[in-house]
């Protein structure tokens, strides 16, 4: 499988973020309607504003590396999304970026570990557990699917596709849940019957990432493990230490 392994570089992450912006923009009205059931109905507009700012920030980046792109995305979420979701998305992307560190490219193994680090940061900041009807209900299964894909030895494209499927299933399952944290828990029936808006955004994000990587892979733009000297071997499991020299 190594010969077919795709590596994600800074440009790949740019394409992924731009795809996310497109997906979220196309679904902004839906996200706001979901949010209106138990929140103040502005999640779609806020997410779209953050993605637009991320797009602008990417153009101004001096160095396009996986971490710099995700860092810009984190800042855009923190500043332009606002509220609880802004903090959660910022924590996730910043956690992933920090775990990737200064690697010029990311393989499936590093991606899975970095996504796990992002989820850990989200849970540390927000304290939400699976079942609380939050982004964690999409994020946790997506990360678990990514880890499992990585252990099976799949490439990043398949890993992201598996994560997207799991995120979508997790987001859809929030329909059956009543909110336990955040403002939604005060709404009538805790928003039961409607999917969580933040979890739906996570699903859209993984779907857009999978689509973007698939397009790049099929068009021959993605770098290939066999001719990339910077490829990270699966031996370097400790992401924190190996990412910061």
């Amino acid at each position, binding site marked *: 499988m190594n010969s077919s392994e795709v590596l994600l570089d800074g440009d790949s992450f740019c394409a992924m973020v731009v795809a996310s912006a497109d997906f979220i923009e196309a679904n902004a009205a839906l996200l706001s309607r979901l949010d209106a059931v138990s929140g103040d109905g502005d999640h779609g507009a806020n997410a779209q504003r953050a993605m637009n700012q991320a797009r602008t920030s990417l153009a101004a980046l001096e160095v396009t590396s996986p971490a710099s792109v995700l860092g810009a995305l984190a800042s855009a979420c*923190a500043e332009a999304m*606002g509220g609880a979701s802004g*903090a959660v998305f910022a924590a996730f992307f910043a956690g992933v970026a920090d775990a990737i560190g200064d690697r010029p490219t990311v393989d499936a193994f590093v991606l899975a570990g970095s996504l796990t680090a992002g989820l850990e940061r989200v849970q540390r900041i927000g304290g939400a557990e699976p079942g609380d009807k939050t982004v964690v209900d999409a994020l946790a299964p997506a990360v678990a699917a990514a880890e499992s894909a990585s252990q099976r030895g799949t490439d990043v494209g398949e890993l992201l596709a598996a994560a997207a499927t799991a995120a979508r299933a997790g987001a859809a399952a929030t329909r059956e849940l009543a909110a336990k944290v955040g403002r939604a828990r005060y709404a009538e029936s805790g928003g039961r019957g409607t999917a969580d808006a933040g979890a739906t955004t996570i699903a859209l994000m993984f779907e857009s990432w999978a689509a973007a990587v698939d397009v790049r892979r099929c068009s021959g733009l993605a770098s290939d493990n066999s001719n990339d000297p910077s490829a990270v071997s699966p031996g370097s499991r400790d992401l924190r230490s190996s990412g910061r020299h």
Partner: protein
Amino acid sequence: MVRTRRLVNDPTEIVPEMLEGYVAANRHLIRLDDHGNVVRAHPKAHGKVGLVIGNGSGHEPAMIGWIGPGLLDVNVAGPIFTAPGPAALTRGIEAADRGAGVLLCVSQHAGDVMNARLAFEEALVRQLRVEMVLLYDDVSSAPKGQEHKRRGGAGLFFVWKIVGALAEGGGSLSECKEMAERVRDGVRTLTAAFGTVVNPASGEPLASVDDDHLVVGVGVHGESGRDTGGDLSAHELVQHMMSRLLDDGSFTAGDQVCVLLNNSGAMTVMELSVLYRSVHTILAESEIGVHRVWIGSYATTQDLAGFALSVCRVDDEMRRLYDAPATGAAFAMPARHDVVAR
């Protein structure tokens, strides 16, 4: 009937225009710094602890009216009903730093807590001396025994006043944090409201609530609470609320308390005075001493027809700090206060 129209210009510019107007009217006390945070016009002396609070806008005069001598130092105002982001909070912490550390005060709501945690971590990375305190008081948001899960409400009024005086008087960072926790642990708040209000930016109602029904436990963003069902008189409502508050906070005969009747927006002073009459009677019957009472609009939810009733247990030190002079645009404690009904 929910009033849906607001006298504004561009709905997306409500918050900056509101800040500009409020600061211009109170320029002897506050100004906007380069980052859009509300700071004191005359910073507190070097060597004193700075107090910062971030909050969603739409609750005015909270917290812009609480920046000034004897109160807080910096308010980071977010979008309507939305917590400000971590970078804005970090800049607020920097603006409040007078060399003795900064206490980041957080009214416990999901967005406020998460953004504050990110800002707190960033402030530590920048080697700022900062502590964070999570504040909550709303009895209706989690059962007794799970106080740490409750949300912040109008009762944090007492934290601002008492900790503001402590910081102004030279209290250390750890003393200020400890006092904030002590006041928080002695405050209990319940709200009641008719109907809901609209988000002034979107024009959308914040909850689907029947206007005619009085609901106890309405959140500061208009989150729905428990319908009381029938028609209660003012006295019956206060009896119900006081009974829950006194039981939840284990208030007993001999305690000294301060009381707040906060107007959520559209209550009349007449109604609030009628309500307080019952509060006063119940406290007297319970042999609980009333140190001071404040009736007014401190933290609003637009023009919500409701109020928050807060009772705060105060010891000698808290009473002295509560009585210390303070001047904010929305709240002032005069320097002379020797006429106190006991």
